[in-house]
């Protein structure tokens, strides 16, 4: 059981790291966009997608850092993460 808890927490920690990497890349893109004097219209949809991704992922990362550290909460957070991924996938398809 302890082994399993450890593995779940490891998985969450690994996920948090990957999420943070993505958040950093999104922040770079959004700040480049904000600073740009000319904002190409065809990129607007992608920027909206990045803003949505940023909102969802940073919310999740905060919850993951500050949330309860028991096994069930960690499992719930990972389930929520897969849900966010599904949302981002379906939004990207548009």
């Amino acid at each position, binding site marked *: 059981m302890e082994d*399993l808890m450890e593995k779940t927490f490891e998985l969450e920690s690994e996920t948090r790291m990957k999420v943070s990497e993505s958040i950093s*890349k999104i922040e770079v893109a959004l700040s480049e966009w904000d600073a*740009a004097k000319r904002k190409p219209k065809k990129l607007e949809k992608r920027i909206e997608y990045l803003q949505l991704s940023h909102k969802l992922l940073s919310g999740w990362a905060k919850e993951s850092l500050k949330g309860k550290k028991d096994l069930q909460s960690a*499992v719930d957070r990972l389930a929520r993460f897969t849900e966010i991924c599904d949302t981002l996938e379906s*939004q990207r398809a548009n």
Partner: protein
Amino acid sequence: MTGPELKRSVGDAVGAAQDVARQAQVVRERVGPPPVAGEGRRVRTSVAAAADSLRSLAAYGRTMNPNFSVSIPTTGSPTGQLSAEAHYRSSARGHERPERTFATAEAARAHSREEDAASRALFMLRYPEARLTDSTATRVPRAGELERMADDVRGWFGPGVLGRSVAERFVRTPPVVTGETQQYFRLVAATNGLIGQTVALQYPGTNHIAVDAEGIFEADRYPSEAERRCILAHEMFHYSAMLGGGYSLRWRGPNGEPVFREVLSWLHEGMTELHAQQMTRGRGHVPPTVSYAAETTVSFYLQQLVGADVLRNAYLTGDLSEVRRLVDRRLGAGTFEAIADAGSGASAFFYLRGRLGERGMPASLASWDRDAIVRTAGVVEEHREAEEERRGAERDPNAIHGSR
């Protein structure tokens, strides 16, 4: 040129110059200031890097899906962040190919081992005291026989059944069937939320169909080859519907608005079984039982109401708009949504029969009830018996019913 003429001409020229200046201002506002060198490239590169990163993150998230349940959206996205319209359009596209594709049975068996490990971990989360033995280590009896039968059933699926688009996807990534042990199957089925004696499943997002190769050859459970073939056809229809977008049942409401329902898996199962039964029987194999009896009977009634092509297209693409329109036209506005909202095949069956009676269609109903699949499902017979018992109770309220 006279004085007034000159004055008018100068006035015109000034007006034209002012128009040009105003237009220049409009253009400047639209186009914006001149770009800083390299700015566009920087924006595009950083947006592409962020999008790539999100794609990898989503792929990583997908690897977790077998372990954690994901809710089906009722309106809009699972998190409510997407518009229902965006979700509708995205669902309508279906899947060009599964997220994970297995080219051979050997590769799919490796997937079974992954699933086994994931299910084991999840099972241990729920039941920490459980002791599980390795269920994939055991040799699966008659797995080869099952896989050969699957090859044959796979050949039944073509453009005539699936339509060109789904058939092309089906051929590009054909379903791969593996035979598993009963123990593996029970564990995976239990942790995937499947109840009862499930004997086969198609893993969502993949072309892998796993079958309980021990259970499917048990003579008292599945006495005929026709049943085994029908089970394989059923799972392959699930897979085809996944490719076409049929996993997400939806329709356009009266004002064109996208409508989703959370509990419609019963209808999906009913339509799957109906098509599998019709296909298997059409190939000369007559299964002695029908799974999802009430769900399949309701689907059969719907098929009679809207036509086989309309129902099959709706099943494969998930878009029930035309089914809704035709059902409402024949049985009155709101009928289709009432069926969809019934919550289960049995409730929908009672509602639909009642509605057909109210709309003066008992003759059609009687002829539909003579269909071999409806008779084998046996729900109509059970319904009649229950009705007779109810009438008997009304006639003689003091009679004792049931066992003594």
